[in-house]
């Protein structure tokens, strides 16, 4: 898990939009017949039955394990290793194999056969499952919407220009003309009405080709704080995504320098004071990321601190009696705050990130007051 997360983190500054489907590749392990819901594709069962979410009858599907690159989705390898293009660590995905008629794409099957209309042999293709790729495609920040289905990437490609790219749950681009939004630069919270009032906001307008929403946001200073408020459904709520751009977003084609890829292994110090120091080190990183607005990166040091805190729990019995209750609370508070930072960071909600960080910081301080 940690390895996969770290790969996601380091892939942040890279870009390449790739198709979600590809020609199937041969893997040593044979594809397996499974059962999935026509509506909830994330459901996969080993036998026929009903969808546990909507109770629809499951349909057969053929799935296989593969190892893919966070940047180069065309890569589909049989085992863990490095991407043949950019040398990044591959991560595990589950591919679905479908057979379709080249002439009648509506004719599909989970097994080989022929088209019932023209009798041509069905051709196999693979597709990824939902939520396998949350990497930015245009050098910006990639967030998941609260509906857990839409995704949004915000970029600041040139001074005074903000763009928002929309994606579905397979991280496939969506037509920006189907969405409304605005880029908010300044807002105040009215304590009497308990409502946020926008003071400076610009409309997000779809580009001619529908590739993105764009707003001209005045001056070209850096760093730039912009909140995108986007409506995903007609008459739906405008969801907020908070961005801080420290520099211009670069739409790079390929990153070949893999030297920055971390092994992802977390070393837990043996004594509680060492663990507490390691937690404090992560706190510095988390604080920097929160302050700089790099919200999609917060989870890495936050969850490492969380793992360290869980390891610290076994040392609480060795701490002075009068501090144990406080320590137990702090460890739990840190675990909770770290997961919330991960969650809110993904959603790009600055206000919630700040609140979760306050909780995180307080817990770290309590731990440090006992173990130094």
């Amino acid at each position, binding site marked *: *898990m*940690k*390895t*996969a*997360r770290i790969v*996601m983190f380091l892939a942040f500054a890279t870009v390449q939009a790739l198709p979600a489907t590809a020609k199937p590749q041969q893997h040593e*392990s044979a594809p*397996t017949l*499974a059962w999935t819901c026509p509506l909830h594709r*994330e*459901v*996969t*069962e*080993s036998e026929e039955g009903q969808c*546990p*979410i909507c109770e629809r009858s499951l349909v057969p599907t053929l*799935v*296989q*394990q593969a190892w893919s690159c966070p940047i180069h989705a065309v890569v589909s390898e049989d085992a*863990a290793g490095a991407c043949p293009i950019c040398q990044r660590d591959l*991560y*595990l*995905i*589950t591919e679905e194999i479908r057979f379709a008629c080249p002439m009648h794409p509506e004719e599909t099957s989970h097994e080989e056969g022929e088209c019932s209309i023209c009798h041509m042999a069905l051709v196999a293709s693979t597709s990824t*499952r*939902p*939520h*396998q*790729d*949350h990497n930015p495609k245009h050098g910006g920040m990639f967030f*998941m919407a609260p509906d*857990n289905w839409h995704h949004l990437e915000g970029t600041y490609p040139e001074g005074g220009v903000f763009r928002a790219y929309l994606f579905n749950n397979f991280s496939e681009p969506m037509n920006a003309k189907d969405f409304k939004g605005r880029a908010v630069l300044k807002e105040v919270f009215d304590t009497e009405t308990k409502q946020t009032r926008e003071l400076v906001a610009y409309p997000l307008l779809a580009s001619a080709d529908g590739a993105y929403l764009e707003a001209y946001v005045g001056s070209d200073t850096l760093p730039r704080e912009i909140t995108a408020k986007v409506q995903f459904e007609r008459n739906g709520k405008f969801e907020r995504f908070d961005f801080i751009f420290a520099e211009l977003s670069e739409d790079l084609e390929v990153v070949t320098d893999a030297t920055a890829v971390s092994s992802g292994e977390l070393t837990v110090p043996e004594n509680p004071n060492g663990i507490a120091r390691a937690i404090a080190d992560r706190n510095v990183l988390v604080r920097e990321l929160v302050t700089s607005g790099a919200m999609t990166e917060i989870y890495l040091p936050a969850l490492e601190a*969380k793992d360290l*805190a*869980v390891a610290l*729990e076994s040392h609480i019995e060795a701490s002075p009696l009068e501090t144990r*209750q*406080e320590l*137990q*609370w702090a*460890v*739990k508070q*840190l*675990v*909770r705050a770290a*997961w*919330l930072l*991960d*969650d809110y960071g*993904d959603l790009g909600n600055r206000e919630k990130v700040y609140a979760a960080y306050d909780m995180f910081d307080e817990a770290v301080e309590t731990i440090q007051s006992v173990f130094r």
Partner: protein
Amino acid sequence: MRASFGLGLVVVAVASTAFAHKPTVTTFTYNHDIFPIFEAKCGSCHRSGGVAPMSLLTYKEAFPWGVSIKNEVLDLAMPPWFADERYGEFKHGAGLSAKEMDTIVDWCLGGSPEGETPVGTSPSSYVNWPLGEPELILMMPSPMVLDAATSETIQELTFETGLAEPVYLRALDFQPGAPNIVRSATITIRFGGRKQTIATWIPGQTPEALPEGRGRLIPVEAEVGLELHYKKTWLDEGSSVEDRSAVAIYLHDEDPGQLVETVEVTSTSAHTLEADAELVALLPRVDGDIEAVVAEVVRPDGSRERLLRLYHPNSEWPRKYWLVKPIALPAGSRVEVTATAPEGATPVVLVDLIS
């Protein structure tokens, strides 16, 4: 970590994509890590026929709720314990430890795999009366019918005890007739124009007896009141459900010598002890959107001790917090309550004292 990828494709790898938010893989599985926590901390409500709308005691029942479980756990809304672990030490704590919270959230976000070896999928047996056979059982005289059109209601009824002489209560317990609709019960005694709440029940609560040699006086003229909160889940919507619950009463054979008295403390009304006493339990009663309730004691020397802090307590889950060790308080000690609550909401904390 990667070694786990070598497990059966459908069982582990495929299941790991369910609700996966990122392409991550957890090392925790339902059968090995999650079921024991769910059984111990959630199973009294989240079981087949329980008051919760879904069981979490089999993998197939639990895994579709991964996102909701994660949210409830991180909000500290479930399990409904609410007590801040920094203050007081209470019996039968129902909160999650840091490790348990981490395990559950990691499993929910990391693909929710089932694991290889199925464990028992039925909850532990639920003993009718964990404290043993009661001296007296007050059974509802007739079933309460929650008709098809009613989703939620509160019912009050009174039992005449028919006592010939005063008795001394050792413990109380409650058993719902229809566990799928009885959300909570509040037990009161009424005499001399007073109505005093002495116990509450929520599903999964472990009953507790007063410390040895302590009892609560029930006068001859007392009546026992029972307030029942009924609430259907969507599983019972449109159906008529009958309930016939019972209250168990445990008595001392004779006057135990030391008697329990319950006093009400609110943010506007502190209680000052007239004599030395032991504080054995606190029962907060809240209503509305309360952020926090704090009960403290200020001793005559000015020292202050925080007894209990509840964080976002939910009025649907009233609970008595029994101290592991009763706290000795000298005469002149003052018990205070403060609350972070909207205007008009005045939480009450019922404090059980033994003089």
